[in-house]
């Protein structure tokens, strides 16, 4: 889960990391009491590159804050709607540094990255300024690593990194993060420091045992829709094209992604990605009906493609569930093309044919059938 800056700063502040005083605004017409100015107004989306998109602006008066907040709220940047802005105190007379902790999947450790300069993308930092090492995912190892990396830096900069290290290591390990990045990390001549911007990405797999993160998620299900959905329903579903015409009822992340690629290559517009996990159906139609209702509510969907490769799941059982789920979803009024492979196909064919649904066993032929039906009902 890629946290909003405001949420990330709240997590950091709880763990003792100094952050500029700030407030969150969701409505430009009702600005709460602001900390002392001047301010920076920052549009909150879970994505990088906000500065370039105009979502980080300075304000000298409360009127400017209100105007800027009004201009940012509701904008869509990088396919994400700005639903809130954070207004915080400007930091003056400070230098900018970089501090990042990144889960290094290939090496199997934590990559510690620091730089005496910051404020720009880490990729844009001068190579000779970056110091980096991969260490064990342990508090002491990370702190010791920062101590080594800070050696030789100017005194106030080294002091800031050493002060930040235990707090950021704790945040990274406690929150089960894959990324904790402070950029810029503001440092003053006396060694005091502040987290100027904060980017935290956490592991969705750990969410169930992270009550603090679950609380954040519950407050912002609109901002983290895929994560909220996975936690509530136990499967993965992503709308890939709100104007899409083909609803997909599929299992398996890789095969579902491949199917979307192939449908698009054939000039079709799939509406959604889905990994429903047939193993988790447990003889209930609940998951199937949930997804079919979402697809039925999509404005442009004209056909549904069901594609299941049952390695383990018996396709006879699955087809019975599918027929029941379709009966339980009267809102779905578009044709359904079914392709099944795996065990129990003879039974599956009988069940589907009795329900008036032809069954394909070859995926390419199913897609051709789908194209024919779409052409026949050209809207």
């Amino acid at each position, binding site marked *: 889960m*890629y946290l909003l800056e405001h949420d990330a700063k709240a997590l950091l502040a709880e763990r003792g990391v100094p952050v500029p005083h700030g407030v969150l605004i969701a409505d430009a017409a009702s600005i709460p009491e602001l900390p002392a100015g001047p301010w920076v107004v920052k549009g909150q989306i879970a*994505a990088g590159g906000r500065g370039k998109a105009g979502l980080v602006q300075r304000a000298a008066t409360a009127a400017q804050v209100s105007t800027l907040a009004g201009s940012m709220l509701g904008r869509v940047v*990088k*396919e994400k709607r700005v639903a809130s802005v954070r207004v915080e105190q400007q930091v003056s007379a400070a230098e900018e540094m970089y501090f990042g902790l990144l*889960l290094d*999947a*290939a090496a*199997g*450790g*934590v990559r510690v990255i620091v730089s005496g300069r910051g404020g720009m993308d880490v990729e844009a930092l001068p190579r000779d300024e970056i110091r980096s090492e991969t260490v*064990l*995912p342990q508090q002491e190892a990370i702190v010791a690593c920062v101590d080594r990396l800070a050696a030789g830096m100017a005194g106030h900069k080294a002091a800031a990194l050493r002060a930040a290290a235990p707090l950021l290591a704790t945040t990274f*390990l406690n929150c*089960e993060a*894959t990324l904790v990045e402070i950029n810029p990390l503001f440092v003053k001549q006396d060694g005091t420091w502040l987290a100027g911007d904060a980017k935290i990405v956490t*592991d*969705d*797999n*750990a969410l*169930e*045992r992270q009550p603090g993160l679950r609380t954040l998620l519950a407050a912002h299900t609109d901002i983290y829709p*895929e994560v909220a959905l996975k936690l509530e329903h136990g499967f*993965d579903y*992503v709308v*890939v094209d709100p104007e899409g015409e083909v609803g997909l009822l599929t*299992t*398996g*992340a*890789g*095969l*579902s*992604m*491949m199917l*979307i*690629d*192939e449908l*698009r*290559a054939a000039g079709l517009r799939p509406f959604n*990605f889905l*990994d429903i*996990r047939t*193993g988790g159906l447990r003889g209930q139609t609940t998951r199937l009906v949930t997804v079919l209702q979402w697809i039925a509510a999509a404005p442009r969907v004209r056909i549904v493609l069901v594609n299941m*490769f*049952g*390695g*383990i799941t018996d396709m006879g059982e699955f087809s019975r569930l599918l027929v029941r789920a379709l009966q339980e979803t009267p809102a779905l009024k578009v044709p359904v093309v079914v392709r099944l*492979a*795996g*065990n129990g196909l003879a039974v599956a064919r009988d069940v589907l044919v009795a329900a008036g649904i032809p069954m394909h066993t070859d*995926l*390419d032929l199913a897609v051709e059938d789908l194209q024919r039906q779409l052409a026949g009902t050209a809207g």
Partner: protein
Amino acid sequence: MIDPRITRETPVIVQGITGRAGRQHTRLMRDYGTRIVAGVSPNTSTSDVDGIPVFGDCKSAVEATGATTCVAFVGAFDLMKAMEDALQGGVRYIVTPTEGMPLHDALRVKRLVADAGAIWVGASTPGMAIAGEAKLGFLPDASLLAGHLGLMSKSGTLSYEAGFRLAQIGIGTSVWIGVGGDAVKGLRYADLVPFFAADAATRAVLVIGEIGGSEEEEFAAALTASRFVKPVFALIAGRTAPAGVAMGHAGALVHGSHGTFEAKKATLESAGVTVFDSLSKLVAGIRARMG
């Protein structure tokens, strides 16, 4: 060199054998030919499952049977503990089909696996198989045909589909390893390059990958560094996936230009790999070279 081969004779322990998935897959693996000699379940009074003795921990199971290979059917939050138990008990080859293992758990376990010199396949893997011999996990029998293609895949279902279509035209696999879709995992594609280079039964290699992460790029580098001479094919899913959204597999998260389809395709091609963008082209391409 890591050697992931097993045979019909390899004795295997199933962790979590008394659970629903454990029981079901124990039966299916046995039916395929896997020699399952013990089960492990820490809190059970069950003495056997289908005649397979059940032990309280891996140490007892290893001591009683001599098996050092195991498959773990346990929940995501219990997997780290189960793997610690396996490694401490003397297991040296672990396959973990569990989906949703927390990444920080995987980081810790990866270190333990390395320290023990063990092989770990997973998590989020459908398992591995030597077609016609034995399997660990639940690769579908319909996709398994003995042959000469070494297969590695992040995705289960996409590999079932590819393996099934290839089997239908008579092209089978020598060793099939589902490396799984997680970002932090045990075996990665590159780890198996030396094995596939040396394995006499493997005449070509198929890698089924997807966007995100750097595993395909590491694999390409390993091929080049080892001057790999057998033909290598690849299928990469997620060419049209939106950036920044994990599509089911935690590893399939694209940020910026890193880990994109185009980047992976270019890197693999520069290492001599033939990259396909659809299943039917993949099958036709492999048939032309191996059929």
